[in-house]
């Protein structure tokens, strides 16, 4: 046998990461990186003002925190404006095909537990053509972090409605208004048994990086919806959440353990059927405010939170909806391989070939 195949990951150093929980099997880096270490030499080619720039910058400046060798980071994307992301980073990367990034990343992550794998996708890429791969990756708890850039439009193909576009939206393909009811990506992910679900906004670097940090710390699949502005085809889709005047009355910043508050005076209370709504704190009393708990085993509460934005972005929770522990796919798969080797011994090719009823001709 020319080579050893079992267990050892190709090119892989031994894992000894004592930082983020999601990186337990990824080696730690000796180098301390700077943001610039993650900037590639490729010219960034989004439209002026595109929200993708801010996300890229936030991501590049966050990566050093991972404490992982650059070569152990892999970024897999589909097709779309957002999916150009990998070219702009100095890590390993694959700009795959439309909608299939979660599938490609599943194979990579499942066979290489020593990598930190990130999936970059858009609302069309990830929820339209790629919806199925996404929900399956989530339920399997594959060790990937999915960043879904939601601009509520197809950018790259120049402006058709997407599965997150608002109903009635007039676009190139819906001159009389879209007939579709949109997905709520957070609700969908929770319905698909996701163990980590969060939402953040392109323009709030600090918040965005906080969510990235939490995702890296999560073992298994993390799903992050990022509201991203497309100034060309769907400008200001998230304006109410960014406008200084309106923002505070709409954004609900969830923090684990803290009561759910919106602005200075309002907060979230629970109704008879578990649904959450926004009330004046003065009226209902501080005590009735729901205290955010991202670690509940039951996803029902996170789901209820995800419905707060209906209708029309009235109140939009951002932060981590849900973050619960469960073994990741790569880990469980590796365990079975190890167990097979332990109980049956390491595979021996000659023995395998001769394992049936054999006879000998002399």
């Amino acid at each position: 046998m020319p080579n050893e195949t079992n267990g050892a990951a190709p090119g892989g150093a031994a894992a000894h990461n004592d930082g983020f929980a999601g990186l337990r099997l990824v080696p730690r880096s000796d180098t301390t990186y700077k943001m610039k270490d993650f900037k590639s030499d490729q010219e960034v080619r989004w439209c002026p003002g595109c929200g993708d720039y801010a996300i890229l910058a936030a991501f590049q400046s966050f990566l050093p925190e991972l404490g992982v060798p650059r070569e152990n980071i892999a970024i897999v994307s589909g097709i779309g404006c957002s999916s150009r992301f990998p070219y702009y980073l100095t890590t390993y990367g694959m700009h795959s095909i439309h909608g299939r990034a979660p599938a490609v990343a599943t194979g990579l992550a499942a066979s290489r537990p020593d990598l930190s794998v990130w999936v970059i996708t858009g609302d069309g890429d990830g929820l339209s053509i790629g919806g199925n791969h996404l929900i399956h990756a989530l339920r399997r708890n594959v060790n990937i972090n999915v960043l879904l850039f939601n601009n509520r439009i197809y950018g790259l193909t120049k402006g058709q409605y997407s599965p997150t576009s608002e109903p009635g939206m007039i676009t190139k393909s819906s001159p009389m208004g879209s007939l579709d009811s949109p997905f709520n990506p957070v609700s969908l992910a929770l319905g698909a048994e996701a163990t980590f679900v969060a939402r953040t906004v392109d323009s709030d670097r600090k918040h965005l990086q906080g969510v990235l940090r939490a995702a890296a710390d999560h073992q298994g699949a993390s799903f992050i919806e990022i509201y991203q502005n497309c100034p060309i085809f769907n400008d200001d889709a998230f304006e109410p959440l960014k406008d200084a005047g309106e923002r505070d009355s709409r954004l609900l910043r969830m923090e684990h353990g803290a009561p759910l508050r919106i602005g200075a005076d309002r907060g979230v209370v629970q109704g008879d059927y578990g649904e959450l709504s926004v009330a004046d704190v003065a009226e209902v009393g501080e005590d009735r405010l729901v205290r955010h708990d991202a670690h509940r085993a039951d996803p029902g509460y996170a789901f209820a939170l995800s419905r707060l934005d209906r209708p029309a972005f009235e109140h939009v929770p951002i932060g981590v909806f849900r973050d619960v522990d469960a073994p990741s796919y790569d880990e469980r798969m590796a365990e079975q391989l190890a167990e097979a080797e332990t109980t049956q011994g390491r595979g021996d090719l000659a023995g395998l070939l001769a394992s049936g009823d054999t006879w000998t001709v002399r």
Partner: protein
Amino acid sequence: MTKQVQQIDRVIIRFAGDSGDGMQLTGDRFTQETASFGNDLSTLPNFPAEIRAPAGTLPGVSSFQLHFADHDIMTPGDAPNVLVAMNPAALKANIDDVPNGAMVIVNTDEFTKRNLTKVGYGSNPVEDGSLAEFKLSSVPLTSMTVKALEDFEISKKDAERAKNMFALGLLSWMYNRPTEGTLGFLKAKFANKPVIMAANLAAFQAGWNFGETTEDFAVSYEVKPAPLPPGTYRNITGNLAISYGLIAGSQLSGLPLFLGSYPITPASDILHELSKHKRFGIRTFQAEDEIAGVGAALGAAFGGALGVTTTSGPGMVLKAETIGLALMTELPLLVIDVQRAGPSTGMPTKTEQSDLLMAMFGRNGESPVPVLAPRSPADCFDIAVEATRIAATYRTPVIVLSDGYLANGSEPWRLPDVENLPDLTVEFTTEPNGDDGAFLPYQRDPETLARPWAVPGTPGLEHRLGGIEKSDGTGNISYTPSNHDLMVRTRQAKIDGIARDIPPLEVDDPSGDADVLVLGWGGTYGSIGAAVRRVRRAGGTVAQAHLRHINPFPADLGEVLRRYDRVLVPEINLGQLALLLRGRFLVDVISYTKVNGLPFKAEELAGVLQEVIDRAE
């Protein structure tokens, strides 16, 4: 009573019964006995499409045909010498294939009014003389089995279910098969159910004794072992051989195997088999669909694994886009298509060779991919190893076209000496190959045109791949017109260049003066070979060659074709290889096609071949 033993050189037996009657198991056991006795053999299982169609109906009939001989044989045979029919449906569904004078053993217990009516028999064929042209043996298999098991503490139903072992015992006697294998098998299988085990052993023994004792069977037959080349043998199906070949490919290349697959008949068994061998470091991933299966395999390949995906026609078409990405990113990837009758859902349990042009051309853009096809169940092993070699050497997806007939059919396989298998060790690139320590992922090996394969985890070689046209050398996105033309031609040249290390086409032309060449590909090898033998036995002269490499073709193929006056190309499709040969070599090959879900019959092919020879003269 001592019975007469008659020497014969070969026999074709078909076991047929209801899906619930255990015919596949019976056939398998008889095959194992026959294999361990040392005959050459070839098998053809035939399942119903339904999981368990209603008992006693025609669609519910399951059969297993076995051809064994004291010499080397090539097919499971055209027409059975012995048909075992466990019920009227089995008789009706199979009797048309049985030649006059052959032996027909029927389980009379099942020939009840009700069962006869179910399949449209107006009267009982066992009694009404309609089977007069056959050597008919009426055996009340069920009741004899129940009788034999009277003393066991089992239900009547369980006793009846052992009737296949009774039949197996009878046939084993009749052909003097060694029985230890079956006895051992039953002991292992029912280790946890001692009463059932004992009952099955007893039923088997009772069947044997019945043959030995009763006057019904005056003769038993002996088929001497075949003079096979020395070595250790086992019987193997195509799907098992592919699975083993893939494991071997992984071991020989040093690349851990990652299978991404989605179940589909007749390919699922490869997934099942590989999932058993985790101790070889094999990861099997049952994906949500075929697209995810191949996508994950490609992702794993990016990570340095031997990425494999397995499927059949309807799943194959779904993989096209990802195969395109694999050929653009120039990563190794094995795509196994176990062909079945199409188009669309077609006939999932039937065989066909009709995915060839799809494998060649079924992708957008100019997207050349090597295509290989095994020619027999055992050859599936070698083809899987060869596919690994090509994928790993040339950094390309490779398509393997097996088929339903090869997948489930079996033949004896001489185990290769593992030490002599080719060394396929892959060395990943670990050092920069450009100026200033730059890494150029599309700077090619000047000989193979393969690009370097550097896997994540390798410091300094970080790079990005993708499906947009890439700049020669750097691999960056490029829309430059001349670069695109260059890359399109380079990708083609890389695949064409594989012909350099494909062996010349083996042509079997013993006399060297044949005018007619018969050229096939894939699973028809056995049928064509058998037809060729018939023709030669009848004094005809014909040459035979068989393609295992279809893209690229062996370098000398054109020359071989032009050497013969006439070239006959038999295919289980409407002439797909023929089109390629004509288009490529402008040779007026004669296409012979039959698309009925079954392998060719040697007799029929021999007739066609003879006609072509006659016309050529």
